């Protein structure tokens, strides 16, 4: 009990918890769940974007997209490593993902249907992610907080590259503008859903806030994102797909319709447009790579043996 009390005092003083420090089991589990979900999201997110690398319309666009997706893979790596400091291996995390016990961001269960989707993902999905991640730089678990610092720098570049694609499309030919609007129509609501349920419906928020794992509530972060993004859409000359969207002078915030929570729940439960496709792809690639990983392990073991004999 006293340990828990000291732990809370430490957190309240804005100190960081490090891997070897004592922590309540629930704090450890909460962080493992959140960090591994974050890592899986980075990795699964490579699929919808990777889908367009081979169709990128210029060499420059192809290079930027490749570099961006590579960054996402790198984020996955730091985050898996951060979670490993809590006593879980990457293999275990991947097994949990495959068993459906660990989640990844539902936004990646939507398809990428035209080139403007690559712009919309950078602008909206990375924009929403970075809004959340900027606040996570102050999260109480040290390795997670440090990973976030690094990731945020790269994510803001991603958001800019996405917006650049949107700008080119929105100011391009009528067909390009149509693609841009279509992408915004399809990605707007899933991006808002990325912040999770309303605060009064979020089971884990309370403890997460108390332990300063989470630093701002779902609704606060969502509002921050909406207020920042609506003027950007106006600048592009595109229409946000929400007839009730309006600026409220009194609150200084935009008002929107409510999210379709039925869709949100369906996608989380595995019934989104691409849930099965994303998981099948990950499982298949993982299974196909087994012989390579076995070879690498066998070779490494033999090298070690030879080194010991020498």
């Amino acid at each position, binding site marked *: 009990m006293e340990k828990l009390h000291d732990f809370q005092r430490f957190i309240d003083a804005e100190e960081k918890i490090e891997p070897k420090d004592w922590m309540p089991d629930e704090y450890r589990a909460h962080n493992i769940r959140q960090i591994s979900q974050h890592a899986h999201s980075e*990795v699964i997110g*490579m*699929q919808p974007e*990777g889908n367009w*690398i*081979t*169709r990128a*319309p*210029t*060499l*420059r*666009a*192809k*290079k930027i997209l*490749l*570099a961006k*997706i*590579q960054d996402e*893979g*790198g984020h*996955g*790596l730091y985050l*898996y490593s951060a979670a490993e400091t809590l006593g879980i291996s990457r293999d275990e995390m991947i097994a949990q993902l495959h068993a459906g016990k660990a989640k990844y961001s539902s936004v990646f269960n939507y398809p990428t249907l035209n*080139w403007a989707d690559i712009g919309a993902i950078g602008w909206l999905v990375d924009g929403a992610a970075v809004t959340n991640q900027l606040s996570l730089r102050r999260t109480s678990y040290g390795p997670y907080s440090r990973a976030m610092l690094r990731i945020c720098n790269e994510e803001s570049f991603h958001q800019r590259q996405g917006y650049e694609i949107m700008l*080119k499309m929105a100011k*391009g*030919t009528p*067909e*390009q503008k149509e693609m841009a609007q279509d992408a915004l129509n399809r990605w707007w609501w899933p991006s808002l859903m990325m912040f999770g349920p309303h605060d009064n419906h979020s089971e884990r928020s309370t403890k997460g806030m108390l332990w300063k794992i989470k630093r701002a509530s779902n609704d606060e972060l969502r509002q921050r994102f909406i207020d920042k993004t609506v003027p950007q859409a106006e600048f592009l000359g595109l229409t946000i797909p929400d007839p009730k969207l309006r600026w409220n002078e009194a609150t200084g915030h935009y008002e929107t319709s409510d999210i379709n929570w039925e869709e949100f729940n369906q996608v989380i439960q595995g019934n989104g447009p691409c849930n099965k496709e994303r998981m099948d*792809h990950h499982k298949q*690639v993982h299974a*196909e*790579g*087994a*012989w*390579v*990983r*076995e*070879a*690498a392990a*066998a*070779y490494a073991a*033999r090298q070690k043996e030879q080194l010991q004999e020498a």
Partner: protein
Amino acid sequence: MTTNQALYQYCLRLGDTNLILGHRLSEMCSRGPMLEEDIALTNFALDHIGQAEALLQYAGKLEGKGRSEDDLSYLRNVEEFENFRLVEQPNTDFAYVIARQFLVDVYQCLLYQKMQKSTDETLAGMGSRFLKESTYHLRHTSGWMERLGLGTDESKRRIQQAISDLWQFTPEMLTAKSYEKELEAQGIIPDAEEIALDWLVQVVRVLSRSGLHKPQDVAVPPPISHSDHLVRMLAEMQYLQRTYPDARW
């Protein structure tokens, strides 16, 4: 053929090779056997596409018809592509990806090393820039040749199969085109025969260190024509540019 025309052809040959290899590697995104390798392969893709960009930009300048590197990449037909046939071969499995890359890496390291001394300043500059990238690629793929060759029975079987299947495409990579002779004589491009000799020595060294054997040379090399693999690849790669010719991306 004037020197400029010959050099244009040569830059296309090297540029297209990088473009097509970069594209093949980019197909590996989210398909690596482990996350680290996924990142490494797409990083190589990025390097090759960067090399293609520089070479094709130079080719466009030499041609003098105002074609950009994007025009050359996205608006030529399959028969106009000059890439080595080796690099259009598909990513059959990880062993093929590594074997193909290794065979090209050894070649490109030797090529770029010599290209640094080209009497053409632009090529010399590219040679030293690209060599840094290719040296790193070769270190990576040589490591995998050894790991797969000496790993398990399955990995050995697969990497040997890949090397044997791809071997038939190597003479084309190593043989100079007739228009290259004059460029070699002027010291503009490296001597292909010298590269071919060093290439074989280095490849065989890595193969034997990895417990693999050099495949039999084919008596009759396959006809020098592109495969259907390339036709499909270009259809995908050029889709947006071809469908919306008025668009700027």
